């Protein structure tokens, strides 16, 4: 990608505001955005304009969706404001670019905080890093996929790229984890040990698994107590054998 010079990068603001950048460009632009107040202001202004655009395509969602959404939120805890985040400094006091830089670094490392934070710490900004990371893995030329139907309904696939050293879990219509439980993701080492690879709550999601998946022989999902476990305490509800990946 040849958008190394500042002028070209600046010109990506419009495409960025409508999510029309390629994954690589997005990472580049977000790094630039972090340090460019002019682009920050422009993106914000363009997004105001796009919000109105959607007015022309309004459509009623199915009435049952309202009930489902309202039932769903009872099982999800709203995130605290960022001032109470686990980061050592008062995040709210930081300028935007500092936060964006942190996310860009996170995206670059393909690392998403620690175990237990894959889903719960996402917000609109960290989502971008996470999605770029997932995109890169999904689009890798050596990406291989294992798909399973889940017993409780829905389906799940794990896509692993050895060159990226990472795996992505994609769920569709996965039932929510039982009350006080969470789904924990695992990577299996060649020795057969299950290593924690993040937590999730079900639904339809794309989640990059924590940890190096280069040599993993399988990925798994178990139901664990909220907060997750160090090693599986229940039988997996899904086991993705990379031998069978295509």
């Amino acid at each position, binding site marked *: 990608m040849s958008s190394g010079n500042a002028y070209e990068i600046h010109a990506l603001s*419009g495409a960025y505001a409508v*999510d029309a950048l390629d994954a690589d460009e997005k990472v580049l632009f977000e790094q630039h955005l972090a340090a460019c107040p002019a682009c920050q202001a422009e993106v914000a202004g363009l997004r105001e304009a*796009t919000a109105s655009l959607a*007015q022309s*395509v309004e459509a009623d969602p199915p009435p049952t969706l309202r009930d489902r959404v309202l039932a769903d939120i009872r099982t999800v805890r709203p*995130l605290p404001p960022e001032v109470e985040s686990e980061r050592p400094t008062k995040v709210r006091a930081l300028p935007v670019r500092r936060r964006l830089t942190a996310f860009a670094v996170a995206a670059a490392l393909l690392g998403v905080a620690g175990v237990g934070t894959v889903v719960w710490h996402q*917000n609109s900004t960290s989502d971008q890093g996470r999605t770029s990371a997932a995109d890169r893995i999904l689009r890798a030329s050596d990406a291989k996929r294992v798909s399973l139907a889940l017993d409780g309904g829905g389906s799940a696939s794990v896509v692993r790229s050895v060159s990226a050293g990472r795996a992505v879990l994609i769920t569709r219509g996965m039932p929510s984890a039982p009350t006080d439980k969470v789904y924990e993701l695992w990577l299996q080492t060649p020795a057969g040990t299950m290593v924690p690879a993040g937590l999730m709550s079900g639904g339809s999601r794309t989640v990059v698994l924590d940890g190096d998946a280069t040599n993993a022989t399988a990925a798994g999902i178990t139901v664990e107590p909220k907060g997750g476990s160090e090693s599986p305490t229940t039988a997996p509800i899904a086991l993705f054998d990379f031998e069978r990946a295509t």
Partner: protein
Amino acid sequence: MSHLSPVSSGESLPDDPGTSLGALLRRCATGDEECFAELYDLTSRRVHGLVLRVVRDPAQAEEVTQEVYLQVWRTASRYDESKGSALAWLMTLAHRRAVDRVRSAEAASRHDTTYHQGAHAVPHDTTAEGAESSIEARRVRNALAELTKVQREALELAYFGGYTHTEVATMLDLPVGTAKTRIRDGLIRLRDAMGVGQ
């Protein structure tokens, strides 16, 4: 920072002109389910309409809309009114989710599907029937009329089609840099014509 845009965008949503979406979001962040329900009622037509327009498949669009509102509930505390209107925050989130859905589906099926086959034939009818009467619909229509035909075309493929600017360039047979320029110029013109976000 005082913005005219958040208020005007919020006010033009149907039914309850006096309600500020930003205030509802702040209540959501405290776990107020009634305010969340009100926010859903005020915004779900627009969110779902956009998601449906991008994703196309009604069942998948429903899932994405559901994900969007769960994310709104979970991350309401992260909305910062100094950076833009609540509506822009919400619609940005909805658009990104919708686009993520179509792109990960593409990436996942790229081995057995011809990429974007038939994309040219996609109709993009962006004029909703019932919307004609509202003031905002007129504002949007008038603002869109300020765009050149080629700007509108590129912008619609990107925003409603969920295509990247390089894909848009290929579809329209343009040099790569041209589509991103049209998208940006179109958005700037739209923003200026609507008098938002400046």
